[in-house]
């Protein structure tokens, strides 16, 4: 199994390098560069040219790329011309926010998906199952941003139960209990809104896995052993059906990234997704490329995580 994981890591590394090259090239193709937004148009073009030379902007692309990578590895992702601060600093707090939002979304997703999937799969074609599958169809059909807007309107404005923006109420000291509760309260509604949608694919996946496993021959073997239905389900059907779900976990991360862009914008939540959209609109390219890089790395690591989980739980993939 270790061999498999190491080999898998060997694939991951070039993936990340390739991703960074693509992002770098795309950033280069964007109009303007690091200086364009920073300087007063009245400065003498010769001085600008001198400055460019000094900053290495006239070097061939691979030298610039090497410089960029060197910086990125050391935590220097350049300057945001819009916020006039280092990108790293800008991203740090937002990354933490997005991390908690994603984690809570994942928890909600599984807390909802696993029981719903199990109920739906075990008692398939009953009215309960129809209700659950009905919900999944609506979830598939309804775009995330519409659901989120509805949530904001109903629970935020109409009932006023949850805040509709920000990540924490102003004026609280970090570290206090009130601060923590306020953070949590700001997270609940966006995380739930997102989970309501992301959960449907997991529910459907789990349901079809269970229905599929129910018809396998080894289930008959288990019954022929004299196993009562509860054991047949717990030991054979659920155990085998949850496996692919576990492996799906890593891929959920990519889904969360896409979702966070909408959710954070709608809830005015200061996270990576919102930062991404804002920077695109403001043409703050050094921020955009850094955010895309981080998203990309997260997705690649998610896929890696999936494969590792699968290799641990599924003996057929385990390599001795």
């Amino acid at each position, binding site marked *: 199994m270790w061999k498999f994981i190491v080999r898998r890591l060997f694939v991951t590394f070039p993936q990340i390098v390739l991703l960074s090259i693509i992002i770098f090239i795309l950033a280069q193709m964007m109009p303007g560069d690091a200086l364009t937004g920073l300087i007063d148009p009245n400065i003498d073009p010769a001085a600008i040219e001198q400055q460019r030379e000094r900053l290495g902007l006239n070097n061939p692309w691979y030298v610039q790329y090497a410089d960029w990578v060197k910086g990125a590895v050391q935590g220097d992702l350049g300057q945001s011309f819009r916020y006039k601060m280092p990108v790293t600093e800008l991203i740090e707090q937002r990354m933490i926010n997005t991390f908690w939002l994603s984690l809570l979304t994942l928890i909600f997703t599984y807390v909802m998906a696993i029981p719903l999937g199990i109920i739906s799969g075990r008692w398939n074609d009953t009215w309960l199952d129809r209700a659950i599958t009905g919900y999944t169809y609506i979830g598939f059909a309804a775009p995330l941003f519409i659901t989120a807007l509805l949530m904001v309107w109903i629970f935020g404005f109409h009932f006023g139960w949850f805040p509709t923006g920000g990540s924490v109420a102003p004026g609280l000291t970090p570290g206090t209990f009130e601060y923590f509760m306020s953070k949590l309260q700001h997270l609940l509604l966006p995380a739930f809104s997102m989970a309501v949608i992301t959960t449907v694919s997991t529910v459907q996946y789990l349901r079809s896995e269970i229905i599929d496993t129910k018809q396998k021959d080894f289930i008959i*073997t288990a019954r022929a052993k004299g*196993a009562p239905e509860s054991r047949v389900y717990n030991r054979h059907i659920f155990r085998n059906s949850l496996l692919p779900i576990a492996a799906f976990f890593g891929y959920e991360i990519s889904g969360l990234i896409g979702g966070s862009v909408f959710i954070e914008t709608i809830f005015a939540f200061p996270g990576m997704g919102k930062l991404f959209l804002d920077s695109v609109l403001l043409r703050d390219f050094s921020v955009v490329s850094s955010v895309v890089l981080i998203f990309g790395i997260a997705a690649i690591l998610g896929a890696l995580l999936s494969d590792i989980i699968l290799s641990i739980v599924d003996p057929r993939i385990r390599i001795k």
Partner: protein
Amino acid sequence: MSNKLLEIKNLTTSFRIGDDYYAAVDDVTLTLNKNEVLGIVGESGSGKSALAFSIMRLHNRAKIEGSVLLNNQDIVNMPTTNLNKLRGDDMAMIFQDPLTALNPLMEIGEQIGETLLLHNPRMTQKQRKLRVIELLNLVGIPRPEYVFEQFPHELSGGMRQRVVIAIAIANDPELLIADEPTTALDVTIQAQILDLIRKLKNEMNAGIILITHDLGVVAEMADRVAVMYAGQIVEIAEVHTLFENPLHPYTKSLLNSVPTEGQDKLHVIQGIVPSLKNLPRKGCRFAARIPWIDASAHEENPVLHEVELGHFVRCTCHAHFYFSDESKEDEKNGIS
């Protein structure tokens, strides 16, 4: 004390298709004695596997009528909790396909141990492991301690079938049902598995129902043979009688269609096996496949007749049956 182990009376198993029920097993009556091998032969669609599944009530959605008495306890109407006490303990089954009959994500030891755990709750984990290793030895698996921790995909087909057998015999069942136990295996492996079943039978004194489409396997293994066609038993006899003096037209035809020495042409049965939905509900079910036999030869409601001691044949048509030479010609046009 009676030697009778299993008594099946008028067993009918029907499946619902659309709004109607169709009988896959139709009015089957059988007995099986201790230490006896009863072969059940038939082609696909004959209901032989449906019969096996009915005996252990393994069908998911089926209507079962009649009675199945194992040591005088009626399985058909038994509450599930009682049934679960019998399954895997007093009666067990060997399945056809060892590739799919084992849980791919469970260690071999755990899968065999599960049967022990379910029926011997007082056994300690250590005792269980010892018994599993003993069973693996018994079915001829080399290095049992090692195999104990392996997963099904790490074993060959023949080894997996041995594991399936080990699961079945774990609690020394009195009734062992083997549903095409060697169909998925190579011939040399088949020979080994059949030898193993024979050896186990002698050691355990169990009654065995051996279901197969392979007449050679039956000839080698069975004491008595029942031939099934379209859900019904058409002939049942002691093995030598059946092979030397077959009476039912279907039995005769089947025996003639097996390639043997010195035959130029094999016998072909006209037409096709009717599907469950198209079974004739009245009259002789085989009549459509021997159209040159006069309709008056058949019974209106064919029943099993005891023609000699222990030799039963369905319908009176057997007395009038002869092989037709034109069967080939008719068959060309007889596309349904």
